[in-house]
């Protein structure tokens, strides 16, 4: 009898608990979810991209920098580029600009470099410190001379998700010129390797890690984000994450 009661109690408790998830799942899929997303604008307006990310000493740097992204691109074009040491790679800067650019690695390296160890804060919750070196994004944008109508800077990448969706990211054009935002060529004082986004990755130390797109091949200036892929300005943004990733 006691055993049966215990069993009944356990089943009741388990189904009650399963009911909790049913309720929270239903709430999550209710129209109220729309209201939740409204605070993103408030957070963006209040926090935005102000101030400077902390710069770390060499001793703090993670020599084995964690990789946590899509698989390293395996398509023929990328494989060829890796084999040839990115000799024929060009970073294209186009869209709403007066002077479209196609910059080789040598040309990017000839520009003023910024090397800084910053903390990479993943949306999942972990952090790692990497010493990233490269060209301030603002300098590359200045070369291309954005038109007055340009509002966003979109980063197109070589990598694709398992289901074939390309990775891309975007920044507000004003925030993109933040002095610490760089198109990184080096990680921990060596050219970025294939797993870490070679030959060029974005590094935005004032926002969460998913903004720092790897394997960047094209920087496109646009008037809006609606026409691109899912329309939310980035691969993870199209999958429910905030476009403003400063929080």
């Amino acid at each position, binding site marked *: 009898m006691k055993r049966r009661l215990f069993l009944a109690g356990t089943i009741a408790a388990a189904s009650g608990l399963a009911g909790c998830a049913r309720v929270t799942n239903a709430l999550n899929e209710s129209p109220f*979810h729309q209201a939740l997303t409204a605070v*993103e604008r408030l957070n963006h307006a209040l926090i935005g991209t102000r101030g400077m990310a902390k710069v770390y000493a060499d001793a703090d740097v993670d020599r084995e920098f*964690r990789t946590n992204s899509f698989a390293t691109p395996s398509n023929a074009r990328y494989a060829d580029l890796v084999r040839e040491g990115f000799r024929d790679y060009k970073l294209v800067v186009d869209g709403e600009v007066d002077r479209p650019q196609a910059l080789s690695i040598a040309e990017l390296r000839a520009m003023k470099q910024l090397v800084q160890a910053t903390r990479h*804060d993943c949306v999942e*919750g972990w952090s*790692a410190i990497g010493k990233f070196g490269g060209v301030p994004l603002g300098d590359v944008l200045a070369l291309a001379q954005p038109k007055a109508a340009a509002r966003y800077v979109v980063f197109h990448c070589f990598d694709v998700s398992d289901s074939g969706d390309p990775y891309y990211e975007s920044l507000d054009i004003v925030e993109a010129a933040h002095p610490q935002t760089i198109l990184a060529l080096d990680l921990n004082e060596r050219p970025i390797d294939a797993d870490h986004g070679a030959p060029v990755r974005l590094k935005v130390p004032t926002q969460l890690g998913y903004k720092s797109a790897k394997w960047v091949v094209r920087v496109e200036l646009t008037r809006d984000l609606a026409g691109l892929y899912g329309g939310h300005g980035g691969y993870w943004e199209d999958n429910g994450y*905030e476009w403003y990733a400063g929080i």
Partner: protein
Amino acid sequence: MSRAEKVYRHSLSTRLTHWLAALSLVILFMSGLQIFNAAPFLDASDKTDPARRVLEIGAVQNGARENGFVNILGLHVRTTGVLGYTDDGMGGQSERAFPGWITMPGYQSLADGRRWHLFFAWILVIAGLWYFVAGAISGKFRKLVISRADLSKLVPMQLYYLKLRKEPPPYGEYNPLQKMAYTVVIFVFAPLIVISGLALSPGVDAIAGPLTSVLGGRQFARLWHFVLTFSLLGFTVVHLTMVFTQGAYNNVRSMVTGWYRPGTHEVSA
């Protein structure tokens, strides 16, 4: 014993902000556990550092089975079915730290957990600011915040609760233990949990770096945030116990209508 007349104890502001805070704390707790699940470990450091790991919840493969575990301060506890390998929020079991029945939403979704968390964080902050302004204007904090004179009454009050003493020590509207609990929760824990949450954000860190540094860095801030969460949960358990054992009707009514009947042997929560 004669029952005193009811008194108007809680202003409309107090009652509204109490329930707003209660609702947001429940959702913040559940969505916070959802967010925790995405990186189910806590390190007492700035960056992720397994050498300074305080807590980890996970699962290990053991033949065909998966065993959930909790590692806390070096202590390894098997927790299959409860933590680490547990309810996936969709009727099954999977490798996840906190079970689906206690996360918001139930199924694993960091993106949605963040949306709920960041929305209700604002509700809590707005309710908190409203409460602080209203309390400062009305002078209510003078009755609620613990004073030096209350300190010597803490032990007698505890003895009274434990039925080791017949009468409580004399006190005003709130007894000394209540005052201590409310002072710590309202003026220490609540601001700290907001600050430690903000310290996790790279955008905030860039504006107010000392905030993160003072807490020991980003991962340490995450640890503080977690510890404060469970401290508030502990407070809530005691709070609800007191509400329901010390005159449930009187207590709940006072937080709904404002009216409280003092002077009975029931001690308020």
